[in-house]
């Protein structure tokens, strides 16, 4: 819940511009872009994700740094588990 997870926007859905597919170290899940409506990301941009919502746009370097911070903090598994959990795959 408290993790800020860096992800790369792969695709923004035509039918719902507030929804995007992100890639987090190879795991792809749908996240919500509604909180970035003032500064919308485009495919290829990097974002920091909290509980399934993109909260800020960051650079590719910062995304790599955040990933290494998560690794150093021992939180990588938790982050991947959270990303995999988006969309209720584990809850049903």
């Amino acid at each position, binding site marked *: 819940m*408290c993790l800020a997870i860096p992800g790369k926007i792969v695709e923004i859905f035509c039918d719902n511009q507030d929804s995007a597919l992100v890639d987090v170290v190879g795991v792809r899940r749908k996240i919500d872009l509604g909180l*970035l409506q003032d500064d919308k990301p485009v495919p290829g941009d990097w974002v920091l994700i909290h509980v399934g*919502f993109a909260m800020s746009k960051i650079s590719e370097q910062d995304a790599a740094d955040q990933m290494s*911070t998560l690794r150093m903090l021992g939180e990588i598994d938790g982050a991947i588990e*959270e990303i995999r*959990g*988006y*969309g*209720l795959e584990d*809850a049903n």
Partner: protein
Amino acid sequence: MRFVDEFREPKLISKTAEEIRRLAGTKLRYRMMEVCGGHTHAIYRFGLKDILPENIELIHGPGCPVCVLPMGRIDDGLSIAQQPDVIFAAFGDMMRVPGTQGSPLEHKARGMDVRIVYSPSDALKLARLNPDKHVMFFAIGFETTAPSTALTVMRAKAEGIRNFSVFCNHVTIIPAIRAILDSPDMRLDAFIGPGHVSTVIGCRPYEWIAQNERKPIVVSGFEPLDMLQSIVMLLHQLRAGEAKVENQYKRVVPWEGNHAALRAMAEVFELRPYFEWRGMGFI
């Protein structure tokens, strides 16, 4: 100085640590509070206390939303969920937190419909998938998660979904800092400001800490080098007798915060006059 070699830019870290020792001297004692639980975790994990001189004391702040939640709130949430046809949805972090009658996980074992969700939007999805049930999302967190809950509530309203409720336990960081500063037995010299909360609220809400309370505050990133640089910035201010809000985490935190997130919170939430924090009483 264990771990230093494993960090990114170990040379720069050693140099920054030296600068801290030079600035801190030996005569004065500096008490700095890291407000955010993420920073506390990083300090332990990276062994930063071993890097810092003895006269810099880091004091852990109130910034873990699960830790500050009073047991009564879990009891209340679980008792609502005991009504027929209610699904109790919460983040995984909540599942083992004890209430007086046991944790959400223990209630699940006794037959309650308890689901782990990783996002409030998935709790809403549960409501869509289970139109004959009522989904209660146990919302928790500081300003990093509160805007997502707010936007989810707005989406539920827009879609006309009526079988979805939020049991709100969101807290904001500023009243907690104010309570700490008002506490007579807490002597602090400076604050390491939260990183990700500040991406939402920006740096302005901290200005009273500098202007009225005369305490320096530096919003900081989470890497060892970020935190050490923040301590250097605080020491510069303290030595010069200054009290300013500074942003060490500029690469992620915009000074003005995230307006869309602030708008969503303002539209959906109302501030309570007080709320109980475990370990701190009523704030």
